[in-house]
C-alpha cells in the first residue's frame, strides 16, 4: 500500500488545493479551498490507517473552521467593488512568484539526497488508539481542556462590550 497511485494522487491533490487556496483572489473561494484541502488530508489520514484522526479532521477542520472563516469573511467584507478590484490586482503581483519558488524548492529537496530512512527509536510497541489517548497521553487531555477553556474566555472577553460591564454594575 505504501507507494501506490492513490497516495501519490492524494499528495498531489493536497498540494494543488493548498496552492489554489493561497493563489485565488476571492477570500470566500480561499476558505472553500482550505476546506477542500482538509477533505483531501482526511482521505490521506484514512489511507495511512488513522480513522479517528481523519474523522476529527473532517468534522472539525473541514466543517467547523470553514464555518468560522466564512462567518468572519461575511462580517468583514470590503464595501465597494473598486476596493475589491484594487485588492485583486495587488495580490496578483505579489503572488506571481509562488509557483516558481515551489518548483525551485521541490527540485532542491528531491535532488539533495537527504537521508530520511533513519533507525526507528525503541519505543513501546503499537497500541490501540483509545489506550494511547486515555492512558499514555492522559496529560494531553488536561492540556486540551485548559486550551479550550482559555479559548472560551478569550472569545468572551473579545466580544464583551462596554455596556455589559455597566449593566453588571447597576
Amino acid at each position: 500500500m505504501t507507494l501506490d497511485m492513490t497516495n501519490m494522487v492524494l499528495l498531489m491533490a493536497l498540494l494543488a488545493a493548498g496552492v489554489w487556496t493561497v493563489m485565488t483572489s476571492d477570500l470566500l473561494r480561499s476558505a472553500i479551498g482550505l476546506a477542500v484541502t482538509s477533505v483531501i488530508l482526511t482521505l490521506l489520514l484514512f489511507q495511512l490507517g488513522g480513522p479517528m484522526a481523519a474523522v476529527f479532521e473532517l468534522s472539525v477542520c473541514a466543517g467547523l473552521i470553514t464555518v468560522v472563516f466564512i462567518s468572519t469573511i461575511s462580517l468583514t467584507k470590503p464595501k465597494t467593488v473598486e476596493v475589491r478590484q484594487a485588492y485583486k490586482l495587488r495580490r496578483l503581483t505579489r503572488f506571481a512568484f509562488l509557483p516558481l519558488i515551489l518548483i525551485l524548492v521541490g527540485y532542491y529537496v528531491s535532488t539533495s539526497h537527504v537521508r530520511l530512512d533513519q533507525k526507528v527509536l525503541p519505543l513501546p510497541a503499537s497500541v490501540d488508539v483509545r489506550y494511547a489517548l486515555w492512558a499514555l497521553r492522559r496529560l494531553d487531555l488536561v492540556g486540551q481542556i485548559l486550551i479550550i477553556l482559555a479559548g472560551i474566555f478569550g472569545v468572551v472577553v473579545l466580544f464583551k462590550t462596554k455596556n455589559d460591564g455597566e449593566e453588571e454594575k447597576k
Partner: protein
Amino acid sequence: MNGDMGAFFSLSILFIVLLAMTALYCILMSRNLIRILIGLELLTKGVTLLIAVAGYVTGRMAVAQTFVITIIVVEVVVIAVAAGIVIGVHRHNHDLDATRLDNLRG
C-alpha cells in the same frame, strides 16, 4: 525501514515541505488578516500530515493519532480566538490590512 516505505516517506516529506512553503509564502506576503490565518491553517495541515506519516512509517499510528487530535483542538481554539481578534480589528479600523495595525506603536 524498507525501500518502498522509505520512498513513500521521502515523497511525503517533499510534498509537506512544498505545502509548508506555500503556507509560509501566504503568511509573509499577505496583508489581509484573514488570509494570514488561512496560511497558518495550511501550515498546520502540513504538520498534521507530517505527524501522521511519521506514525505510519514507524508503525505507531495510535500515538500519532493522539498527537493529531491534540493539534486539531489547539488549531480550532487558535482560529476561534484569532477570528474574534480580526472582527475586533475590523470594527475598530474598518480595514483588515495588517500593515495598518500601528495603534500601539510608540
